[in-house]
């Protein structure tokens, strides 16, 4: 066996704190190593050519690259060795950058550690066996979860490319957060005017099947072949009959239902169509408020409905679908104002969130676009905006910036002046963050043209005084206390992940961070992929993002799906479990532990029953291998012998 070892300098990243020449020198002493060298940037084209040439020149049959994390470049180098004629699994990486040079301060110790990392990789590569992929068919249907602007963009782009799309939205209408905005920065475009046509396209596209008011119940399978269950929640209205006339909503006697669409600014009816442009424009009953459900009698809507669409007996329905890829666009939530007691949101009616203010500004909102105080329905003249309400506040566990509040507060200050010309806006801010095209100009306009007074400092307390709210804070530029007596206070509340974000991630087998935002495969270079092949991210479920970024990511995710589906067959990962029929005793413990149901019984010709792996279903976790009492089932590329070789390379007594 002739192993070649290539040790990367990675500029100064590795060579700065590891003596790479010495690592190479020590490596040459390892039995089996035929060739060891160092290179400035092994991943560069000349670096890869160097590997290919050395394989031919030195007659190498195994390759180790000691460089960065295999999560970064394993695939790159596997392709390199494959091009030189070796099996792509005759390759190992020693991670001497992320795990050694970047974290250790002592160069001698780092060098020793790197040498041992190489020793382990060499031991492993000498145990490696050639593996070959098989190919399997792809189901070219895509599931988009979430019908906000990111999800709709992804769905439309996929559908325009000829793919069949299932769009699942949990609320009764698509549109997401953007449908609830009045105008959008920095152009002051009417939000629903630019979103509405997209929503109609989604509804009318013959490649898109929309499941509104539905949730994902279960996801099984793997890239190219998922089986999913969708729960179509009971609306108590037969949507095939409902015409969206709204007669039921007019006559419904239960007038105090919570209006989720309007963020609870004003009550709605128990049977309602969330907003005039809703897609689908169908009514649904909220059983928490409907008298028929609460008191057991009413039935007004059933009597009034011209098409007899009301069905109080309706039950949730579960449907099953087969798909090949998933785009997750589940969006975000806003922090509950109760978590910010110093501002009194929720306690004082005249302290509201930016999202609620957006509904007050909106012509189709509960006040028909007239700005009024929730307490006495008077027009406010002094409005205080507080940015970073919850954001960048470690004390409540939100150290991050919510990305777009600075901008929408500037927009709301501008709109306020448009609505009430004799009003005065005050904006309390920590920093003005406006790094986008035309964004900084926009925040300047709010101040210079519309006269919004920006006060740099945090608000410590808000309390009522007569019919005013006193906003007390500091002005850190003047170094003085300030008090503003405002008629209305608007909080730029922090963006948080959706309440069921973690639950959804667990169904999808994707990772999420401490805050519940989904983790992309690489923060810079793979921003829409996840570590689960076939699952892609779009929009604010991955982190706070404004509309242009969400739309961009929606399109990006769609193009990733298009690329995936451009092949009819996908290559399977051959690193799956394999059973040695001769040593398997047929206890079938592996069958019981396999999380994917990838193991089945198989009867041999002599009547013995053994375990058998369904290769396409096996995900390669190796739980079976460590369960098997006789070592008969082995996860390829991570067999007992291969892992023990690594252990033995560093633990020798």
């Amino acid at each position, binding site marked *: 066996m002739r192993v070649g070892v290539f040790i990367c300098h990675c500029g100064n990243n590795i060579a700065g704190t590891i003596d790479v020449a010495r690592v190479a020198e020590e490596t040459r002493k390892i039995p089996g190593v035929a060739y060891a060298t160092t290179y400035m940037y092994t991943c560069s084209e000349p670096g890869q050519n160097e590997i290919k040439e050395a394989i031919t020149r030195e007659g190498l049959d195994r390759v180790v690259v000691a460089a960065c994390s295999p999560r970064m470049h394993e695939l790159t180098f596997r392709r390199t060795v494959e091009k030189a004629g070796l099996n792509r699994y005759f390759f190992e990486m020693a991670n001497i950058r992320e795990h050694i040079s970047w974290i*250790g301060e002592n160069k001698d110790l*780092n060098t020793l550690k790197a040498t041992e990392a190489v020793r382990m990789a060499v031991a492993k590569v000498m145990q490696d066996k050639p593996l070959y992929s098989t190919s399997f068919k792809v189901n070219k249907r895509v599931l988009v979860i979430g019908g906000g602007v990111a999800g709709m963009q992804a769905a439309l782009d996929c559908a325009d490319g000829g793919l069949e799309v299932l769009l699942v939205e949990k609320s009764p209408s698509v549109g997401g957060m953007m449908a609830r905005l009045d105008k959008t920065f920095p152009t002051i475009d009417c939000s629903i005017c630019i979103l509405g046509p997209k929503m109609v396209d989604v509804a009318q596209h013959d490649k898109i099947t929309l499941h509104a008011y539905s949730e994902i119940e279960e996801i099984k399978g793997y890239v190219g072949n998922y089986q999913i269950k969708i729960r179509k929640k009971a609306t108590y209205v037969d949507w095939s009959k409902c015409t969206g006339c709204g007669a039921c909503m007019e006559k419904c006697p239960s007038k105090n239902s919570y209006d989720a669409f309007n963020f609870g600014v004003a009550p709605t009816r128990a049977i309602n169509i969330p907003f005039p442009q809703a897609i689908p424009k169908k009514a649904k009953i909220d059983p928490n408020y409907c008298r028929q459900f609460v008191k057991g009698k009413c039935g007004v809507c059933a009597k009034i409905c011209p098409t007899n669409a009301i069905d109080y007996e309706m039950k949730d329905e579960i449907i099953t679908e087969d798909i090949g890829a998933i785009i997750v666009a589940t969006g975000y939530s806003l922090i509950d104002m109760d978590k910010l007691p110093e501002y009194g949101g929720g306690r004082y009616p005249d302290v509201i969130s930016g999202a609620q203010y957006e509904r007050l500004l909106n012509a189709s909102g509960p006040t028909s676009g007239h700005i009024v105080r929730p307490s006495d329905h008077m027009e406010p003249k002094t409005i205080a905006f507080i940015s970073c309400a919850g954001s960048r506040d470690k004390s409540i566990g939100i150290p991050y910036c919510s990305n777009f509040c600075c901008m929408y507060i500037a927009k709301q200050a501008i709109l306020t002046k448009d609505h009430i010309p004799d009003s005065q806006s005050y904006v309390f801010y920590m920093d003005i963050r406006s790094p986008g095209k035309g964004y900084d100009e926009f925040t300047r306009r709010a101040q210079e043209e519309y006269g919004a007074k920006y006060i740099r400092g945090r608000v410590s307390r808000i309390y009522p005084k007569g019919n005013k709210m006193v906003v007390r804070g500091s002005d850190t530029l003047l170094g003085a206390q300030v008090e503003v007596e405002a008629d209305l206070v608007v909080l730029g509340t922090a963006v948080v992940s959706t309440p069921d974000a973690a639950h959804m991630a667990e169904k999808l087998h994707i*990772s999420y961070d*401490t805050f519940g935002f989904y983790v992309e495969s690489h923060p810079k270079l793979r921003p829409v992929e996840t570590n689960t092949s076939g699952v892609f991210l779009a929009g604010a479920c991955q982190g706070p993002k404004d509309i242009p970024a969400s739309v961009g990511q929606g399109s990006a995710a769609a193009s990733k799906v298009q690329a995936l589906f451009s092949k009819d067959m996908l290559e399977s990962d051959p690193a799956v479990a394999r059973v040695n029929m001769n040593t398997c005793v047929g206890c079938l413990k592996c069958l019981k532990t396999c999380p994917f149901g990838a193991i089945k019984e198989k009867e041999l010709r002599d009547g013995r029953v053994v375990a058998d792996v369904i290769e396409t279903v096996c995900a390669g976790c190796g739980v079976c291998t460590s369960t098997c009492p006789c070592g008969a089932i082995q996860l390829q590329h991570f067999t007992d012998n291969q892992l023990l070789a690594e252990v033995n390379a560093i633990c020798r007594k």
Partner: protein
Amino acid sequence: MPEIATQELRVVGFLCNWCSYGGADTAGVSRFKQPTDLRIIRVPCSGRVDPLFVVKALLNGADGVLVSGCHPRDCHYSDGNFYARRRLEMLKRLLPFLGIDERRFYYTWVSASEGARWQQTVTEFTNRIHELGPLHIKKEATP
């Protein structure tokens, strides 16, 4: 390799590819300084870690073994880490019978985004092993 090795002890880590290995990468990218004693072995899932690997390492010269996977319910393979937890908890109780202080073995969960948590885990575990000193199995055997 030369004498410098004497100030280090042998700590072996089995890290799952999806969470903890990524967490260690994140710690590296963020330049979170750590003790250098740890040698990392990448496994697809903490559920792949056969308790015998741990025993083998400790009997063959490791002074401490660390296993780290995805947080419970966040396993890339649904529930591999639940199997790991069960097996490794059992292993921890068995180690004293082999004459090994159970504090030399530790399993935990670190996600790919938790670089700081990884730094803390490595630092604390390595310090603990240094407090315990090199492993001499006969000495630690309980009578």
